[in-house]
């Protein structure tokens, strides 16, 4: 597979996941934002923007305005609309490599979101747009899994999705657990809902919301798709499959990196990390993800030409 094609598929997938993650977080917190309560809307918004890894004036501006911007502002690179646009741009570069159903889904989603977002004002219902978007991405993922070969391209799509997810989840958990002060039950519900995990959590732990249990579930549960551990395991599998396909390449570094990340989560108990300050832990996971991305980029997409000619 051409490096350019793999690169586009990978980024298409990352941007879609980024938009998806953002929409889940916003959806889960939207109702909380409406409540005039303690902690204040501003404090809550501050946590939301931290949990999305946002910087700059988005963290401090009026929550409602910021929320709308985060959904629909095309000039804001981290907005949902922008992410969809970049994902579509990447897909359009490799249209002949993805199925026509995938392209149509994504194209349609883009047009729906951009059209609707233009009409959206601060006062209207942002949830409607989020719902529209969420349905669109679910459909796109379904179509992706059912209409193309589960070969190299599909693996790069999955790699992008799970790497982005691992980063996003770690940032999110970091925002909740590193500064746990002023967190009530509603916040824990919002956190679980941000990961579509409330129901799944209840099946394991009942509706008893304990920070340790929430952390254990979202960080270390191997079976639920929106957990850090599950994401890293998927990355591990995908990278292993890719290493088998590109057997001529020196994939050992990447496999070692992802193996280390995956096993560090697989063989960790929550009570080993929970008593300590969690922030360095999450920072480390995110750092490993970034290094993994750099290694993937260097091995598969933009490898130095001269490395191919070294004798």
């Amino acid at each position: 597979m051409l490096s350019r094609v793999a690169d586009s598929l990978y980024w298409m997938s990352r941007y879609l996941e980024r938009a998806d993650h953002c929409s889940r977080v916003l959806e889960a917190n939207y109702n909380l934002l409406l409540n005039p309560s303690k902690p204040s809307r501003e404090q809550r918004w501050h946590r939301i923007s931290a949990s999305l890894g946002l910087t700059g004036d988005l963290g401090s501006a009026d929550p409602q305005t910021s929320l709308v911007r985060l959904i629909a502002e095309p000039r804001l690179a981290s907005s949902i609309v922008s992410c969809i646009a970049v994902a579509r741009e990447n897909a359009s570069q490799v249209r002949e490599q993805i199925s026509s159903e995938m392209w149509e889904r994504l194209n349609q989603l883009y047009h729906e979101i951009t059209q609707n977002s233009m009409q959206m004002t601060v006062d209207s219902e942002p949830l409607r747009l989020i719902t529209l978007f969420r349905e669109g991405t679910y459909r796109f993922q379904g179509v992706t899994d059912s209409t193309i070969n589960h070969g190299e391209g599909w693996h790069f799509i999955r790699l992008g999705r799970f790497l982005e997810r691992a980063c996003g989840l770690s940032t999110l958990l970091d925002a909740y657990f590193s500064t746990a002060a002023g967190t009530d039950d509603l916040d824990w519900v919002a956190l679980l809902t941000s990961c579509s995990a409330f129901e799944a959590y209840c099946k394991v732990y009942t509706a008893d919301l304990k920070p340790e249990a929430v952390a254990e579930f979202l960080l270390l549960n191997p079976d639920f798709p929106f957990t850090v551990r599950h994401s890293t395991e998927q990355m591990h599998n995908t990278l292993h499959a890719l290493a088998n396909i590109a057997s001529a390449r020196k994939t050992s570094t990447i496999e070692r990196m992802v193996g280390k990340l995956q096993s560090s989560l697989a063989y960790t108990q929550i009570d080993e990390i929970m008593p300590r300050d969690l922030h360095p832990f999450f920072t480390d996971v995110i750092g490993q993800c970034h290094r993994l991305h750099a290694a993937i980029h260097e091995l598969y997409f933009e490898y130095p030409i001269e490395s191919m000619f070294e004798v």
Partner: protein
Amino acid sequence: MATTSHSADRTGSDPFSAYQVQSAYDEMFRSHGRPRTQYRALHTRLLSMGPDELRRCKQEADLSFFNQGITFTVYGRGEGIEQIFPHDLLPRIISSAEWEIIDRGLTQRITALNIFLKDVYHERHIVRDGIIPGEMIYTCKHFRRQMRGVKVPRDVYVSVCGTDLIRMPDGKFVVLEDNLRVPSGVSYMLTSRRVMKQIFPLLFRKCGVRPIEHYSQALLATLRSLAPEERSSPMIVLLTPGVHNSAYFEHTYLARQMGIELVEGRDLVVHDNYVYMRNTSGLQRVDVIYRRVDDDFLDPLAFRPDSALGAAGLFNAYRAGNVVLANALGNGVADDKAIYAYVPDIIRYYLGEEPILDNVETYLMIDQKQRQHVCDNLEKFVVKAVGESGGYGMLIGPHSSSEQRALFRERILADPRNYIAQPTLALSTAPCLVDDEHVEPRHVDLRPYVLYGDKVTIVPGGLTRVALRKGSLVVNSSQGGGSKDTWVLAS
């Protein structure tokens, strides 16, 4: 014929009732109501259909084109807009005897033009022997001096050619234009055949239509025959300018049909005179490039330094024989509209044969006498800029205003080498479905595709382009033209 009137009576709505056979040659009718032999089966079928069925067929065809994503890009304001390629439901039918002449004529022409290109870039006998003035060659915009002395694999310059033919009022096919650089449109020929087979399956069998579906395999075989001999399983790729190119659909279509990689310039790397593509599994050597990128953009080192569509050093790898480009570079010197006037002489000079397919009478504006004659009678001529294509830069004399003629006169006098003139031609007409219910004549041309590798292959058929606007003579898709499936009959 009795059957004709009978059928018409039966349905009560003859779709041909408004069909006027004009002074131009009509592909279907000898005279009103008398179809030519090869069209009889179609005629009978159409008479039996009735307007509802016709409309349904047209809708079914439209849907099929849409679903196959057969589009081209029109550039207007900023972003290009994708449009469904306009097509007409009724096939254009060519008898086997007519095709036999076309086939021989095109083979003769591509053979001669290939020898011409080799000569132009090597010994230049044709100039020394005074057949073509050197000036005509050196002033050609697409002449590539860098190609002088470059050895081209198998001496094949033109591997893929799309020749535009038109039919004169006497029924003879003549050549209007050779396209020897990056001819396009073949995907429309192939996809429209697929659609027509769904719509008229029985008619296909009844008429004995010769297949064209092997075009992609023939193209692949042609490309493979050009590969360096020592490469037992050569890597063949299609080089596209990218998603924003108007023919991108065709590039993806052909790459998929041939099962070869679709690459862009940024996927290619040249190192130590070899060309590689950047795969996830590492660099892979490329042997043959079916390039759909114009000469000037192929290599920023050798040609336009600002081009990002090619790869630096590609031309040197080509010169060294380490990669094959199809078509070769510099072919534009042979499809220049002024050089075109010399093609009959080119055929006689190299092959010692009379041309099987004639040219359209052409006046060279660089010649003082011819220029005078044309400038004095501009309203009778079609004037074309030699380097332009796609129907741009043209004056159609009979349809022009005196201001337009004055403007062209000025342009011709300012740069006579850049213009030629041809008499206004009555392109033949073929039946077209108008408003989804009745049939009217519209002007058509024919672009068959010729492949030349270790042998010449011409799939029986081509792209029939049709001027969908009533009375219009412009068949280019960018200017209101559409296409028709072209049926060549087996006997």
